């Protein structure tokens, strides 16, 4: 009778015979002390573990890498690592004429491109000292508020998806489609519209614009009711978000957090109200604020903000004045086509604007607009040439994200996802 399993060593009583033992090399390796033998066991709670979250993690909303220092499930420290989407837009600005910079601004906060165009255009117009006709201003407001709705819808869908609610994501995409259709109608492009230009707009809006805006305005409030029915009083949602990621007013100011993050903490500061630009003071709307500064309050603020945006769009569309949309300064805005056919001077202007753009006076300006994420500022330094000498973009996501470590310290790792969703970052905006 033979043994089924090979014996672990030579049979007792016999000397080891290496040639007969095919496992000898492996056994010799096993006897070498490894690093594991020298590890001293420590008590639970004494040591922490480092965990990489991202840059490919779906709930980091882009390519954000977080290095989390964990004690069990509790986050002791969080170090965001950004820059994966750094594109050097600020360097590129310096070699593009002002109008050529507009498509670059689209690609920073890619969820609300018209608002980036808006901020850049306003800063350059401040430098040039020109005003846009009222019709242009109103259409700019409508496009900006539609972009805000679109951006908040993406936030709503993904934030809910991160916390396990799948339905809102599909609903939000359905509504966003109508807004992208309007973008397509007016500019020919669904996302990177470049519709708002220095001196006015790309073109006046076509006739179909009215009915499409009206349809969004009429259906949207009911849609928001639908979303709120799904989420706002959902016990799972409230449990997961209330009291989480709290940012006090003092923290917000210290970190430079603006937008719904600041308003969620209870400060009614909105640049559309505080320093109204482009006729925002003609419209009647409220600034929703929270009181606790947690994830849930930021959620409520943004939901309410969507209703206010609809109010602004409705008023702007109802009172949309006639007239031109572009400034009459032919040194800045392209002359209309029919003028080029009849006037030599217009042809020259057209040629000069297309080939070398316009020049701005020397100096430095800063203009900030309220983007869906907060204060989006453009600091432009001009040396009198046809390109910005230096253009710094004050991105709201960048400052808001810098408060993230403060918000997640001491929270559970599963809640990090909720907090990231609630500050609504766009990595294109963070990294620029």
């Amino acid at each position: 009778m033979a043994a089924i399993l090979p014996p672990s060593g030579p049979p007792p009583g016999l000397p080891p015979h290496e040639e007969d033992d095919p496992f000898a090399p492996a056994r010799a390796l096993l006897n070498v002390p490894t690093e594991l033998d020298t590890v001293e066991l420590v008590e639970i709670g004494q040591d922490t573990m480092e965990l990489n979250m991202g840059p490919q993690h779906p709930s980091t909303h882009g390519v954000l890498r977080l290095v989390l220092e964990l004690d069990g499930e509790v986050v002791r420290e969080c170090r965001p690592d950004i820059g994966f989407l750094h594109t050097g837009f600020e360097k590129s600005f310096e070699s593009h004429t002002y109008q050529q910079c507009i498509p670059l601004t689209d690609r920073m906060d890619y969820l609300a491109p018209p608002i980036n165009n808006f901020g850049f255009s306003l800063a350059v117009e401040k430098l040039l000292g020109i005003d846009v006709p009222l019709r242009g201003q109103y259409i700019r407001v409508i496009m900006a508020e539609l972009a805000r709705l679109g951006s908040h819808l993406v936030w709503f869908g993904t934030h809910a998806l991160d916390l396990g609610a799948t339905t809102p994501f599909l609903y939000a995409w359905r509504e966003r489609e109508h807004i992208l259709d309007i973008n397509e109608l007016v500019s020919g492009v669904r996302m990177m519209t470049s519709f708002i230009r220095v001196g006015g707009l790309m073109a006046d809006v076509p006739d179909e614009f009215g009915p499409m805006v009206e349809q969004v305005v009429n259906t949207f409030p009911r849609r928001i009711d639908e979303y709120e029915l799904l989420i706002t009083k959902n016990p799972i949602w409230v449990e997961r978000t209330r009291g989480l990621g709290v940012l006090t007013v003092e923290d917000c100011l210290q970190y430079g957090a603006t937008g719904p993050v600041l308003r969620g903490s209870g400060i009614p500061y909105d640049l559309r109200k505080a320093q109204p630009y482009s006729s925002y003071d003609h419209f009647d709307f409220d600034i929703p604020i929270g009181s606790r500064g947690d994830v849930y309050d930021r959620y409520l603020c943004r939901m309410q903000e969507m209703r206010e945006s609809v109010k602004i769009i409705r008023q702007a569309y109802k009172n949309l004045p006639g007239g031109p949309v572009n400034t009459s300064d032919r040194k800045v805005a392209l002359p209309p086509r029919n003028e080029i056919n009849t006037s030599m001077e217009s042809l020259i202007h057209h040629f000069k604007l297309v080939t070398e753009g316009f020049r701005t006076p020397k100096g430095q300006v800063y203009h900030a607009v309220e983007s869906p994420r907060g204060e989006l500022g453009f600091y432009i330094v001009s040396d009198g040439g046809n390109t910005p000498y230096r253009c710094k973009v004050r991105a709201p996501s960048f400052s808001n994200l810098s408060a993230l470590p403060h918000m997640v310290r001491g929270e559970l790792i599963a809640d990090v996802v909720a907090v990231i969703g609630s500050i609504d970052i766009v990595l294109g905006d963070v990294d620029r």
Partner: protein
Amino acid sequence: MTTTPTSDSARPVSGARAARLLAAKIPHAVLRRDEAYGEETVYVAREHIVEACTLLRDDPDGLYRLAVMVTAVDWPDREPDEPRFDIVYQLRSLQYNDWCRLVVQVTEDDAHVPTMEKVFAGMDWHERECFDLMGIIFDGHHGLKRILMPEDWEGHPLRKDYVSFGEPVAFTHNIEWALPAQERPPGMPGSAR
């Protein structure tokens, strides 16, 4: 054509409140005041910038408590003895609905400023970005390392002497500009090989 002035034109000069406050409380820190485009810029001496920002943050007449940004502008074409970098600080006061701009000028050899992160925690990342892209050293910063560029990157991309693109492509008409004589293959015009 009807043009109504935008709401901007009616607003008081941005930063005038901060400039008055600094001139009254710490006049030794204010080097120059400059007003243009409805914005007032205060040029502050480097050794007083932390003091100036702390005053603006805490003084009941200022309360510039929101950290907006720090950035720098490179002026390599200035005279050699003039400062090459303008370091720009912007703060916002929610109480008085105003924002202000402070500028510190430093030379290329001595591109150092004291850190502002003790005054505004949010300046941490902005200072790292400014160091990364412009090469300004913020003395006393707890971890001044690159933030947007890869950590092993060389140079500071936003400086004017950092060429962003324009890799030379050799054609027959620009061969002398694109390729040095030693690198030209044998048989090419002007080849040294």
